[in-house]
């Protein structure tokens, strides 16, 4: 090897092909993150159509069928396009750097698992421009709404879900292989950062349930096009079977969207408390317990389908049991902060908001877990408020916290702290104005997924819509902060944050294109 060649590391290729052909985990992480942000804005704009229509009772802007298309597309795009790819992006960027690996274990597959996503969502979104309209049966696509009564575009939806599933399965295989095989010598499993742990468990969850999702949409495909009767009662099938198979996927799916968030918060809280994470071991066990329990609680989404009493009780108690490991986590975060020397930079603000607001979403989840009470809450705005509290100030806030936390490492520049704080406070206020009144709407009996409503719900809906637009527009501040940070700013140090510990903070900022080509020594 010639000397000059040895001394410098190869930077990225130039131009568009860098992104098309890249097998570099940092490039792919960046692609995932930008893609998920684009989907976040797209799904958010669908939500704003919904909130605009619900601003006042009566039909103002859109026809009921288009309203249904908006609720469906909002859910699908946010779940599969925004939240999941954002976490995969964070995993791509951070896991190799956190465990001292040179890259992901399967870099070419990594490229592939990202690049099928834009095609999947282009296919799904293209249905909006078709004569039959986009899918309108809700993101849970219950049969027979999604089979017998579905618009013809359901086939596009099915193949889009197949692609998303393939992407997730490949992504999770890659993450597991990386974590199991590429840890630096001395990095035992119980020395791994919490973010890596939560992603390892999430990847196993993905591997277990994404194929079941692929199976259920395949059954739909057969029912719609090949005359089978998996979910068609007239042919001996059963629509309730659909709900069982769907929620067998769907419940672990909600933990897929929150476990990496737990990991992110478990990184950020210790840094800005300048203390070690309290109860590391119990965090690992709690995460594993949550993952296990997530497989045996699915029917709590189906309390009103006519289950026998024994079934209702089993799923009710199993669901409540999840509060125990989740409580352990919340306790650990609070204990980490207890008597720490806290500072409140933007990532910490988002992380603390996460702990508080996610816990609120968890409590409404406990209320919904009580089977007899669920008969009242089922399919109302209370459910909408519940899962938005765990997903928006839960999953989404943790993603934003992660972005602010690691932006200096990614770009080499500090972001604009004042703008970051402004983004936080606008989001924090917006989110609560948006979702808190929905609890009241639900308790008062407003059903979800309706374009028009009775007059007594008018005031809270108006407040909620105002919060929605505030939250939506304040995300443009986030976009601005990120672009500004990419383009320049105060030079970041290697450690970036005073209390930050871990391998990723020992390499320079911005992180070089190739890191840990020789494994670091782990003390």
């Amino acid at each position, binding site marked *: 090897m010639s000397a000059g060649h040895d001394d410098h590391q190869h930077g990225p290729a130039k131009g568009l092909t860098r992104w098309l052909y890249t097998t570099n985990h940092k490039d792919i992480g960046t692609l995932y993150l930008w893609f998920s942000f684009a989907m976040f804005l797209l799904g958010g704009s669908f939500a704003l159509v919904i909130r605009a229509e619900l601003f006042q009772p009566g039909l103002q802007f859109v026809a009921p069928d288009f309203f249904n298309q908006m609720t469906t597309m909002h859910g699908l795009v946010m779940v599969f396009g925004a939240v999941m790819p954002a976490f995969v992006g964070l995993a791509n960027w951070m896991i190799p750097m956190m465990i001292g690996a*040179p890259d*992901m274990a399967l870099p070419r597959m990594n490229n592939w698992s990202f690049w099928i996503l834009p095609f999947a969502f282009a296919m799904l979104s293209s249905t909006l421009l078709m004569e039959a309209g986009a899918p309108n049966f809700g993101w849970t696509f219950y049969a027979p709404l999604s089979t017998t009564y579905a618009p013809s575009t359901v086939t596009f939806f099915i193949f889009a879900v197949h692609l998303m599933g393939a992407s997730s399965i490949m992504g999770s295989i890659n993450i597991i292989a990386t974590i199991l095989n590429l840890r630096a010598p001395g990095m035992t499993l119980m020395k791994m950062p919490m973010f890596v742990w939560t992603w390892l468990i999430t990847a196993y969850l993905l*591997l277990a349930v994404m194929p*079941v999702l692929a199976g*259920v949409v395949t059954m739909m495909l057969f029912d719609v096009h090949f005359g089978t009767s998996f979910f068609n*009662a007239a042919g001996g099938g059963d629509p309730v079977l659909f709900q069982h198979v769907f929620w067998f996927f769907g419940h672990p799916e909600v933990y897929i969207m929150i476990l990496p968030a737990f990991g992110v918060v478990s990184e950020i809280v210790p840094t800005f408390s300048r203390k070690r994470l309290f109860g590391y071991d119990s965090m690992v066990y709690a995460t594993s317990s949550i993952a296990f329990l997530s497989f045996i609680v699915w029917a709590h989404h189906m309390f009103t389908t006519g289950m026998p009493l024994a079934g209702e009780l089993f799923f009710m108690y199993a669901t409540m049991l999840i509060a125990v490991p989740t409580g352990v986590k919340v306790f650990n975060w609070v204990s980490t902060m207890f008597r720490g020397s806290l500072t409140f930079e933007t990532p910490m603000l988002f992380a603390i908001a996460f702990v508080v607001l996610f816990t609120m979403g968890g409590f409404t989840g406990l209320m919904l877990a009580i089977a007899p009470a669920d008969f009242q809450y089922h399919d109302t705005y209370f459910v909408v408020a519940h899962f938005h509290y765990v997903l928006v100030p839960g999953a989404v806030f943790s993603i934003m916290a992660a972005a602010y936390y690691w932006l200096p490492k990614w770009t080499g520049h500090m972001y604009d702290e004042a703008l970051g704080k402004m983004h936080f406070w606008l989001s924090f206020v917006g989110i609560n104005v948006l979702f808190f009144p929905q609890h009241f709407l639900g308790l008062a009996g407003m059903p979800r997924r309706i374009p028009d409503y009775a007059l007594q719900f008018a005031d809270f809906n108006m407040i909620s819509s105002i919060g929605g637009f505030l939250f939506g527009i304040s995300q443009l501040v986030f976009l601005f902060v990120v672009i500004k940070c990419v383009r320049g700013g105060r030079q970041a140090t290697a450690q970036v944050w005073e209390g930050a510990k871990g391998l990723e903070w020992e390499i320079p900022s911005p992180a070089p294109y190739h890191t840990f080509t020789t494994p670091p020594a782990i003390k």
Partner: protein
Amino acid sequence: MAEPQITEPEAPSASTAGGSHRARRKNSRVVLKLLATALAMFGFGFALVPLYDVLCDITGLNGKTGGRYEYSAVDSRVNTERLVTVQFMAQNNAGMSWVFKPNVKEVRVHPGQLTEVSFYARNPSAGDMVAQAVPSVSPFQAADYLHKTECFCFTQQRLGAGVEVDMPLTFFIDQDIPEEITKLTLSYSLFDITANFKRADGSLGVGALSAN
């Protein structure tokens, strides 16, 4: 000159990120195992379909009645001590245009007593139609004790335009029906399945009426 620990100065490209040959073998072992898991879970999704039916069958959940029951001498013992009320209901699934109703609203029968009733159906439309009745028993605990020896729901019903028909149902209640069940409801939903039998020219297929 620097002393790189690795043989390739460019560091990880696609072919080397896994490192040595040994590391790559380790990777492919993990990948194969995980792929097998994913495939198995895909299969498990489909296995849930028969599992669901088996579970409903064992527990009697869902109020599904069984198929044709072979009546035997053992069943002919009639328990005249008890009377069970059997109510009949009929309803059309969304979009079904037929007139469909039971000819008697309810009967009181002894367990073991073979009883025949009938349901009325008429096709008011201007074309041939095919229908399928899907039964359900309430309370679902009674489903295992209602035995049908003959039922119009075992086959599809094909009626020409304006044609009406009385469709037979023969059943008996099992002698082992629990004491606390004194009344049960047998309900039928009628589904329009004409579309499944339509040929390209719009006529109905001849072989349409095979048993269910």
